[in-house]
């Protein structure tokens, strides 16, 4: 951004400073440590100057908000026009209890829903399956059939709220149920707004709730892209997620690289399935983590946006500008929360949320202070939501777009993260793409190595975690009012399934499942028969069992 003469002058000026003012101080007072690094181990210089951003081309690398390559943000007005969607991930126990929590959150000013499902639902088992024992309603709400979905969204107008559902392997089934509930409310599919996570690749790499092998899983995803392009124009068909990869312990660079490499794999699969890139790419969305290193995270979000725009344009020849816009949801880092002195987590979450906002997120979930101990209590969730509201309305950071642009440090870090992520993606390309890289355990090994190094740096006290390896309390006072899921929820769901099965049209269910099986064996789109099965109250377990029968199950190799 400076001409060569100016840069040379600044270089000289810096040298003079190093030899004079700086040296005098360093001789007497050495710095706190020899090497300074970001949370992700990127080296950090003492001070950044225009020399570090000398190669930055304003038009090519930054541009203006709402314009390619979207480094400054995907909308021309950003938060001056509309604040991000405040979306707290919630769900536990029965559909009734979760419905109550959603209504509470909406009353408190939350602007979108985010549904957490329990593990049996996420892995396609009904609540009465042997493997579901002890897990029903624990990490999210238990959904077995459309009957539960009707209760979950009872009294919530689906044409007014947008709903994000953290569901992957059986995403098409939950979307089918959502469409069916909306229809009962008199809301047509084209009006539905929301997101299904639907990102199976990160399940294999980091999160673990896979069901089917990669190939049929990719088919379910591209079938969903195709169906939604025709019938649900406002639905985000996937949320390509770096969040869980980061939680598993990777670095900021790896988070960007692996997420975008997964994104490339989905785009390629959809093109392979015959879709036009500009028909489905505008509905792709992303999901990132926001960790503790504030400026590194801001740079990460900016780098991800720029890199994705370039990939879409250069690699896939996308014409529609919306295809190149990386829209993303952010959640603050669960793994940064400490069980020790949990109130300190409110401060951590504030910093992480601030990074997400300074990075231009479209929606945000802020974690609750007690989540290293249990599911969050209502009080903790309210503080977490209020944290977003304070940033939005009091901090002033929403008044101008991308306020950290032009910072020598942030721009230089943005560049570094983009460059290193690009190198990773090239490596993954050489391995044959994200699916192959995951099958070979490449991503898993990289993630584990980073996680292990981080743990070592905490144990050696090279990194300070307040309250954990420094500034501990002799005696911790435990927070009160932790949320407990009623253990009876498992029995309750079992009874509901028994009643449902006695009550529904068994012939219609059998016929719908038969049709689904036939479609799975052919190459027809799976969404219509899944929707038909959901509407006659086939359960998730029944639908997944049909697909397991045709597709088989994924078997992972253990790497550590």
């Amino acid at each position, binding site marked *: 951004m400076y001409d060569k003469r100016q840069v040379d002058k600044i270089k000289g000026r810096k040298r003079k400073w190093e030899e004079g003012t700086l040296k005098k101080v360093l001789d007497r007072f050495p710095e706190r440590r020899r090497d300074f690094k970001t949370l992700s181990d990127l080296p950090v210089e003492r001070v950044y100057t225009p020399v570090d951003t000398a190669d930055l081309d304003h038009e090519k690398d930054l541009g203006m908000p709402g314009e390619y390559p979207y480094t400054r943000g995907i909308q021309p007005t950003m938060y001056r026009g509309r604040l991000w969607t405040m979306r707290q991930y919630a769900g536990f126990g029965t559909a009734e209890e979760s419905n109550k929590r959603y209504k509470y959150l909406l009353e408190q000013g939350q602007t979108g829903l985010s549904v957490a499902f329990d*593990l*049996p639902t*996420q*892995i396609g*088992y009904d609540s009465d399956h*042997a*493997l*579901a*024992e*002890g*897990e029903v309603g*624990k*990490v999210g709400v238990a959904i077995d059939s459309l009957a539960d979905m009707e209760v979950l969204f009872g009294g919530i107008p689906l044409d007014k709220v947008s709903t994000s559902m953290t569901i992957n392997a059986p995403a098409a089934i939950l979307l089918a149920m959502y469409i069916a509930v909306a229809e009962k409310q008199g809301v047509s599919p084209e009006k539905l707004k929301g997101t299904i996570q639907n990102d199976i690749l990160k*399940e294999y790499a980091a*999160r*673990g*709730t896979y069901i089917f092998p990669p190939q049929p899983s990719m088919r379910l995803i591209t079938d969903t892209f195709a169906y939604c392009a025709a019938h649900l124009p406002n639905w985000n068909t996937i949320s390509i997620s770096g969040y869980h990869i980061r*939680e*598993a*312990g990777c670095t900021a660079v790896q988070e960007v690289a692996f997420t975008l490499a997964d994104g490339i794999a989905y785009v390629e699969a959809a093109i392979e399935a015959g879709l036009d890139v500009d028909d489905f790419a505008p509905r792709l969305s992303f999901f990132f983590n926001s960790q503790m290193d504030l400026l590194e995270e801001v740079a990460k979000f900016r780098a991800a946006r720029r890199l994705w725009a370039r990939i879409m344009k250069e690699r896939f020849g996308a014409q529609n500008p919306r295809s190149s816009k990386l829209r993303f949801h952010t959640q603050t880092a669960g*793994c940064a*929360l*400490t*069980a*020790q002195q949990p109130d300190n987590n409110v401060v951590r979450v504030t910093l992480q949320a601030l990074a997400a906002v300074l990075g231009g997120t479209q929606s945000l979930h802020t974690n609750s202070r007690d989540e*290293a*101990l*249990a*599911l969050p209590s209502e009080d903790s969730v309210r503080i977490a939501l209020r944290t977003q509201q304070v940033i939005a309305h009091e901090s002033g950071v929403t008044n101008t777009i991308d306020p950290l642009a032009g910072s020598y440090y942030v721009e230089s870090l943005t560049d570094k993260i983009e460059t290193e992520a690009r190198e990773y993606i090239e490596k993954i390309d050489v391995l044959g793409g994200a699916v192959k890289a995951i099958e070979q355990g490449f991503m898993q090994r990289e993630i*584990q190595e980073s*996680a*292990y190094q981080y*743990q070592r740096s905490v*144990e050696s006290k090279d990194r300070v*975690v307040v309250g*954990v390896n420094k500034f501990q309390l002799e005696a911790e006072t*435990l927070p009160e009012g*932790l949320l407990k*899921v009623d*253990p009876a929820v498992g029995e309750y769901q079992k009874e509901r399934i028994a009643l449902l099965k006695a009550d529904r049209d068994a012939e219609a269910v059998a016929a719908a499942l038969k049709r689904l099986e036939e479609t799975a064996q052919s190459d027809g789109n799976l969404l219509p028969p899944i929707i038909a099965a959901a509407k006659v109250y086939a359960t998730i377990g029944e639908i997944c069992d049909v697909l397991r029968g045709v597709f088989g199950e994924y078997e*992972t190799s*253990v790497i*550590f």
Partner: protein
Amino acid sequence: MRERPIRVLIAKPGLDGHDRGAKIMARALRDAGMEVIYTGLRQTPEQIVETGIQEDVDVIGMSILSGAHTHLFPKVMQLLKDNEAEDILVIGGGIIPDEDIPALKRAGLAAIFTPGALTETVIDFIKEQVQK
């Protein structure tokens, strides 16, 4: 003096996919000179006990972050008892509220390690208990 290195089975019971902690522990124990087997995800209590006995382990370490520990940990303990394998030292870790710990210890778990626990602490605990 023991003739062989301490053998440990690290296990993920239930449907929980969070295995960052389990894998870090597996590697830390291995780096500390123990022989470590990691089951991978989604193991039933029956599978864990069977593997533990077959592999003749000294220690089973289980990790759960989903809240299913109250159900699954005691079930593993019961099965060990049924198979007369109570001599295996069993420890647990994960998101486990303090108030659940006494009941888990009564069920026979030797220790529960919660977020923030150091791998050193776990290594020392195992060495001390197994050498006894």
